[in-house]
């Protein structure tokens, strides 16, 4: 084993290999950082370049991309509240609040260090304990995935600060959204409402951008005319790096716990970084001291999420390298690349090709440190991004949201879905609902559905579905976790009932004094839930047992939570002001109309011209002073520069298709 690592390390002594490893890491950070581009896509695009390389060189580059992307997705999560990939959703919870406090660099450095730490822990385990862990991973069957999904949902109690009911309502809506399109197992098409393009389901990239990014821009830049992304300017400095690193080094328990969670989730085939970072974040809030700081901007939250999703990557390679079973979608691409170089996973990899395999593992380790280097050094540059005036940054981000939601599936409907989600996200925010549980519902829905349907089939064949789903060791363990997670807070509150009673009184009086008139948010949501449930039931009547069971399950929950919301809305009204001023309402409406016009124009005059026009108008709109000839030329030049830059980056460098027009092609 140690010899293997040494001979693997020898490959890294070749300067060319090291160059490609660093190049891969840098590219990975770019792919992770651009919402809509993923590690999977970055790996796939780079696979052909590795043909002409030596196997070791090619694999080192892929290792760099994989590790880099696991960090890169934290950058937009921290700076603009938009997870670069689903794995960074939990990074937004504390990263964005930090950045709003002017502490973006703290968050970026914490993310880089945590990514490095998680990745190192994961890789050491990969190097030393791959075989036994791989055998464990096989024990994960349909029943286990079902319970893993349910356990994931109990995290909502952490995500929805404030009202648990609000969290469950939005999560259930998310689960229903996940069932749009063709059912993975039964192949039936559901809830597409006459749009054939919806057969592919809701794109996760569009949902992330729509629910996390658009509401912020619509509300802060367009609605409130904020001049920069955050109130406080960022002043990057070396001492920030020093303080942040010191702070995290002194928290070994947090770092190790997060890494181990990421590793375990990574080993389970099919479960990816998005689940890993969520679970890790929620465990951090459960076990850390001063849990009330989470969600308001603590580097511990950022570290918990990033350590987990970076440890997930080597974890997912464990079943891949030993059994040929990829633990995550990017791992599947690496499998493809291995096979192209004639290397079959399994024993061969550790015997015949041992030096290349260990070069890959050592490469992952070195890439982790490259991430730390790029991350801390780069934090000076990235952090300044949010100091850019909003009339420059907002139109740029809006154009990127279109690209990001379009890129993966080459589907213009995904962009419209993104816009609709943005509007819904804004409404939810104003009604005091969080977007995170909804996206969690979209992500976990398929695990729960596939687990349930396959359990029904296999359990049915064995005699009893119920005993198949419950009487298995890992299932029992997961059920125990679910129960603890769901009822734990309630039990704790029983123990400290006195204190809770006091805070509740405070909370209640606060609500009464603040909002006397306004919209009753729970009442509105309750009505919406019941209407949605009715529409879903009406349009999915013809589904088979297997194609419909999950939809009926979710709709049942929706009716339940809908009625609960109605009751609560009547008994304990939570009234909110939807718009603060009429000017704000007018601005947001105009902003949405402008975005819609942009999307309409894209297929007509093409992406380039539509983006130029949109950028120009949006940039002039966001300017507070009257438009002069000079400012017009300034905005025009900016628009030309930005569009040219994006076009060359996506079209030439990354070879990602852009929306085409019907006339100007």
């Amino acid at each position: 084993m140690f010899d293997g690592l040494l001979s693997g390390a020898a490959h890294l002594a070749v300067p060319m290999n090291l160059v490609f490893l660093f190049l891969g890491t840098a590219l990975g950070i770019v792919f992770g950082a651009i919402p809509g581009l993923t590690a999977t896509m970055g790996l796939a695009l780079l696979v052909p370049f590795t043909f002409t390389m030596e196997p070791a060189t090619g694999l080192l580059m892929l290792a760099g991309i994989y590790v880099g992307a696991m960090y890169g997705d934290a950058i937009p999560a921290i700076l603009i509240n938009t997870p670069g990939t689903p794995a960074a959703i939990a990074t937004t919870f504390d990263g964005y609040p930090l950045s709003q406090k002017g502490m973006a660099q703290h968050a970026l450095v914490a993310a880089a260090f945590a990514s490095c730490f998680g990745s190192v822990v994961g890789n050491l385990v990969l190097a030393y304990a791959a075989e036994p862990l791989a055998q464990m991973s096989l024990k994960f069957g349909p029943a286990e995935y079902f319970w893993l999904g349910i356990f994931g949902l109990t995290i909502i109690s952490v995500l929805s600060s404030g009202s648990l009911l609000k969290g469950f309502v939005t999560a259930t809506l998310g689960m229903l959204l996940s069932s749009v399109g063709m059912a993975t197992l039964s192949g039936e098409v559901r809830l597409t409402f006459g749009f054939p393009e919806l057969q592919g389901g809701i794109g996760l990239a569009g949902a992330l951008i729509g629910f996390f990014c658009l509401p912020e821009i619509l509300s802060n830049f367009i609605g409130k005319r904020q001049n920069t992304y955050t109130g406080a300017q960022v002043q990057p400095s070396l001492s920030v790096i020093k303080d942040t690193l010191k702070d995290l080094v002194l928290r070994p328990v947090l770092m190790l716990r997060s890494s181990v969670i990421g590793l375990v989730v990574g080993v389970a085939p099919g479960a990816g970084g998005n689940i890993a970072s969520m679970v890790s974040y929620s465990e951090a809030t459960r076990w850390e001291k001063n849990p009330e700081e989470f969600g308001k901007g603590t580097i511990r939250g950022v570290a918990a999420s990033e350590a987990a999703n970076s440890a997930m990557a080597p974890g997912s390679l464990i079943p891949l390298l030993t059994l040929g079973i990829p633990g995550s979608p990017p791992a599947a691409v690496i499998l493809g690349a291995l096979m192209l170089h004639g290397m079959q996973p399994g024993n061969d990899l550790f015997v015949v090709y041992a030096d290349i395999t260990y070069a890959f593992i050592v490469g992952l380790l070195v890439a982790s440190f490259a991430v730390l280097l790029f991350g801390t050094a780069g934090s000076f540059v990235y952090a300044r991004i949010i100091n850019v005036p909003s009339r420059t940054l907002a139109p740029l981000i809006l154009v990127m949201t279109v690209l990001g939601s379009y890129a993966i599936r080459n589907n213009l409907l995904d962009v419209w879905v993104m816009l609709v989600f943005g509007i819904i996200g804004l409404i939810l925010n104003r009604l005091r609902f969080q977007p995170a549980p909804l996206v969690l519902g979209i992500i976990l829905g398929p695990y729960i559905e596939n687990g349930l349907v396959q359990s029904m089939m296999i359990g049915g064949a064995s005699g009893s579905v119920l005993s198949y789903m419950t009487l298995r060791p890992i299932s029992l363990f997961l059920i125990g976790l679910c129960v603890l997670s769901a009822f734990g807070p309630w039990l704790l509150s029983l123990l400290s009932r006195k204190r809770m009673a006091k805070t509740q009184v405070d909370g209640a009086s606060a609500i009464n004094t603040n909002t006397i008139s306004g919209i009753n948010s729970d009442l509105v949501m309750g009505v919406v839930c019941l209407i949605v449930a009715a529409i879903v039931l009406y349009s999915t009547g013809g589904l088979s047992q297997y194609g419909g069971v999950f939809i009926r399950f979710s709709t049942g929950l929706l009716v339940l939570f809908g009625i609960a919301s109605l009751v609560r809305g009547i008994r304990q009204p939570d009234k909110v002001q939807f718009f603060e001023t009429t000017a704000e309402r007018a601005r947001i409406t105009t902003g949405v109309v402008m975005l819609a016009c942009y999307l309409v124009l894209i297929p007509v005059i093409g992406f380039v011209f539509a983006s130029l026009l949109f950028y120009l108008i949006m940039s002039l709109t966001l300017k507070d002073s009257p438009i002069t000839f000079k400012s017009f030329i300034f905005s025009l030049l900016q628009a030309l520069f930005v569009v040219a830059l994006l076009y060359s980056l996506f079209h030439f460098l990354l070879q990602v298709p852009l929306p085409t027009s019907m006339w100007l092609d």
Partner: protein
Amino acid sequence: MRKFYTILASLLLLPTLALADGYPEKNVVYQITFNPGGGSDIRARQQQPMLEADLGVKIPIQYKPGGGGSLGWAELVKKKPDGYFMSGINIPHIILQPLARDNAGYETEQIEPIILFQQIPFGLTVMADSPFKTLDELVSYAKENPGAVTIGGSGTWDATHIAHLQFEKMTGAKFTYVPHKGGKPKQTALLGGHTMASWFGVSEWLPYGDKVRNLAVATNEPVETNPDLPTFKSLGYELLSSVYHGVGVPAGTPADAVARLEAAFTDIANDPEVRARKLKDGILPIAMSGADAKALIADRKEIWAPIVEEFTQ
């Protein structure tokens, strides 16, 4: 007005027809109907540099995943048939989807196959420690215990599913078919003991070596990689099951463009190095012409149509 557009379109097309000798004059888009990084993508990216060298233009790869591939094939048949847009095609998918779903968005005949460049035969596989030593044991156990035997497959209305339905019909036994989200989860389920048997392609069982046992393979002749493995035919079941991968263009594409693409892909398919690598991985390298592919499609469609109809009733 429509007439005007038709005339306008044909006027615009005239120069391209006149210059048909020079095909291809611009980039030819290669569409993948599955996710980035999947088998189809890796295959296409392997062909990409060779195609670019042969055709002298760029071959950008474009993804259109969703609906088990149907979204991409629906996109393909909507494209102008000018030879500048092609897509990976899979048999049986492009036959079964329009048969089984009225919302597939395309008809099989709207796709003109250019070439089928590889074939992966399927068989029934169990774990090495399974009590089922032969196909007969599996079938007779299932006859005594209807529905108790779980058999995994890669999805619904794909190669494994139709093979399963045909096999059930031939044996008269009742199994429980468990679809998965693609080939890999199906393999994991068998290895972890979550399914009792599974429909595996040759390339899927080879990496597992002695860990798995194959009961039969659904080809006419025994496969090279497992010469002792009986065929379903030799055991009395007329079952043929393979997945074929190839490339197609929208029907109505000019013949010269089709011929040019077919020549380019045939050269790649016959490349000794490409062939050797496929054989080693358990994939049969073939170079089936567009015309032969059409005949194969018509033949399979005739066999499968009644089965699909019966099942979707």
